[in-house]
């Protein structure tokens, strides 16, 4: 068995809420609350969830850009959470991050060449060697070598994201955390960047943690997918298993909510509409955190938080009443005689 490149064990990142004159702590936001997962070499693990589910905090906590509150992160068997400052700097060469906003993550006063070369200089490479490497990388991400002399504002959103990717690649990492790397881009440009990511993954043998809210993009690029809700992983499986036979009612509801660019499919679709909004991660519901919106919740769900357990080989779900092949969420809702919120997607 291969050793995972990244292992995350019961990771928690909590933020204090401080209020009043003396900034007394009045509560805690449980942004990431007990996440366990791994990433294999050359693998893409997708992480999906709605805003506030903790997916971005998870990515940053893995790299300790935000210091986790508890739990461990291990990179190729070595503790990241236990590393001292010097060792952490070495480890960051191996683990890079690409941010969502290509406008905010590039220094507007530096030419692109220096933006990409900065990590090299910090790690002690001389200027000539660094420049050669930057020129080669610009080519790899589909830009011209002379683009290096220009400033970020001279580039479009898609090009800036290519620059961000080149900067992440410059130290020759093994793992890249991609935090919503294409959500700010127009669709035609989004597809270019997705293809680029797939190419560089093959060429450099990279592992990806791909954090996004767009379920179609995540299915396209991922090998396995983790679904997060209020700071926790509620389901984790091979992508086709997860999208075809989801075990957690939240995953089923998410998938049924996504509009599909196929009018015939939309006409035939039945959806389960979740009621209400996402509860606050500062005050998550008791028991199963999803029970307030779950169409099949029962008494036990209000009291007893379900563990993430294996429902079939490699398919994990945190639910007392997981759905399965041949027993969809719609079936379960009907069997329980619950108020059916199924709607035909459109009148015709």
């Amino acid at each position, binding site marked *: 068995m291969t050793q995972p490149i990244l292992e995350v064990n019961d990771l928690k990142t909590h933020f204090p809420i401080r209020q009043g004159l003396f900034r007394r702590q009045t509560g805690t936001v449980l942004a990431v609350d007990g996440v366990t997962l791994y990433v294999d070499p050359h693998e893409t693990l997708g992480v999906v969830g709605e805003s506030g589910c903790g997916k971005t905090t998870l990515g940053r906590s893995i790299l300790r850009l935000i210091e986790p509150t508890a739990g461990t992160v291990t990179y190729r068997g070595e503790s990241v959470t236990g590393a001292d400052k010097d060792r952490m700097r070495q480890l960051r060469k191996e683990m890079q991050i690409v941010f969502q906003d290509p406008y905010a993550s590039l220094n507007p006063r530096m030419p692109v060449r220096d933006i990409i070369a900065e990590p090299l200089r910090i790690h002690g490479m001389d200027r000539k060697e660094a420049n050669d490497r930057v020129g080669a990388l610009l080519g790899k991400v589909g830009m011209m070598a002379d683009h290096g002399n220009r400033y970020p504002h001279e580039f479009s959103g898609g090009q800036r994201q290519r620059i961000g990717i080149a900067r992440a690649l410059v130290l020759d990492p093994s793992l890249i955390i991609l935090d919503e790397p294409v959500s700010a881009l127009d669709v035609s440009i989004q597809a270019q960047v997705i293809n680029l990511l797939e190419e560089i993954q093959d060429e450099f043998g990279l592992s990806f943690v791909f954090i996004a809210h767009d379920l179609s993009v995540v299915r396209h690029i991922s090998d396995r997918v983790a679904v997060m809700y209020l700071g926790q992983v509620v389901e984790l499986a091979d992508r086709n298993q997860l999208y075809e036979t989801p075990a957690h009612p939240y995953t089923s509801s998410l998938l049924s909510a996504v509009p599909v660019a196929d009018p015939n*499919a939309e006409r035939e679709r039945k959806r389960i509409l979740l009621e209400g909004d996402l509860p606050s991660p500062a005050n998550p519901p008791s028991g199963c955190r999803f029970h307030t919106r779950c169409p099949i919740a029962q008494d036990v769900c209000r009291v007893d938080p379900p563990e993430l357990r294996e429902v079939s080989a490699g398919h994990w779900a945190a639910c007392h009443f997981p759905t399965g092949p041949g027993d969809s969420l719609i079936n379960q809702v009907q069997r329980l005689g619950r108020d059916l919120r199924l709607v035909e997607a459109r009148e015709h």
Partner: protein
Amino acid sequence: MTAPLLSVKDLSVTFRSDDGDLTAVRGMSFDVMPGEVLAVVGESGSGKSVTSLAIMGLLPRSARVSGSAMFDGRELIGADLKQLRKIRGKDIAMIFQDPMTALNPVFTIGSQIVEAITLHNDMSDKAAWERATELLNLVGIPDPKRRVKLYPHEYSGGMRQRAMIAMAMANEPKLLIADEPTTALDVTIQAQVLQVIRKAQAVTGAAMVLITHDLGVVAGLADRVNVMYAGAVFESGDIDDIFYRTANPYTLGLLGSIPILTARVSDKLTPIPGAPPNLRRLPEGCPFRPRCVFATEVCHGSEPDLMAVNGGRHRSRCYHIDKVAEARAGSTV
């Protein structure tokens, strides 16, 4: 045949700037029939939002607008503010992407809906408040009697969007213009709000112009589609024509760029190469030519007209309609 509710003819919008004039909309023509949902699809800078703002008379004075937009027998372009105010919020209502730009933070949701009602109707305050509560109920706001008295900041994002829809529907408009109504929302909330829009439209029978970049939302809501690129309509037709009998290279490129949720095997996406053109310096000939895989010599000459495909309502701005249709038939998208 019924007359169109809105008939836009040769609409152009130009903004002056220090770097030269920027023409955001170039000679748009389209009709919206009563009760139909027309989706306007395009990427940033395609002119889809500017078109609707021009129709509503909401552009800054520095914008030069020419052409015509006949709504229910009245000309909107160049109409004075008094006339426009009678129409806006009554016969034509708008829903925006960000509800906080449309809702006033210092008034309760109820008082804002009541204002919209009493401005255009002779109705008592009491009756108007009852109607406001009824409207909130229609858009699925739980406990509307209590929530009608709350302020916008006390609503969640999805609820604000519903409240804005309630306000837009208050005077049973004939036309609803929705500009990216669900783009800022999470997917489960988006599904709720789309359902509310469908319901509100079905209840009032209003026609709708739906401006969006999301082809999934289009597939679930629209009857007809205008695909825009570089300030002009590039393809126009019934929804099935656009998705299944695509006749324009840009539309084909958009469809090839989006991953499909239900696809088991992920083939490589086929993105459109390059980037959208600078509107101040459009390329010679067809503006899409530099990115187009079908382009030939003829595309360098003049920009093609919007031409009929198979003689029907389906039209495409392209010299190579046949080649595109052939490629579409051969692809599995």
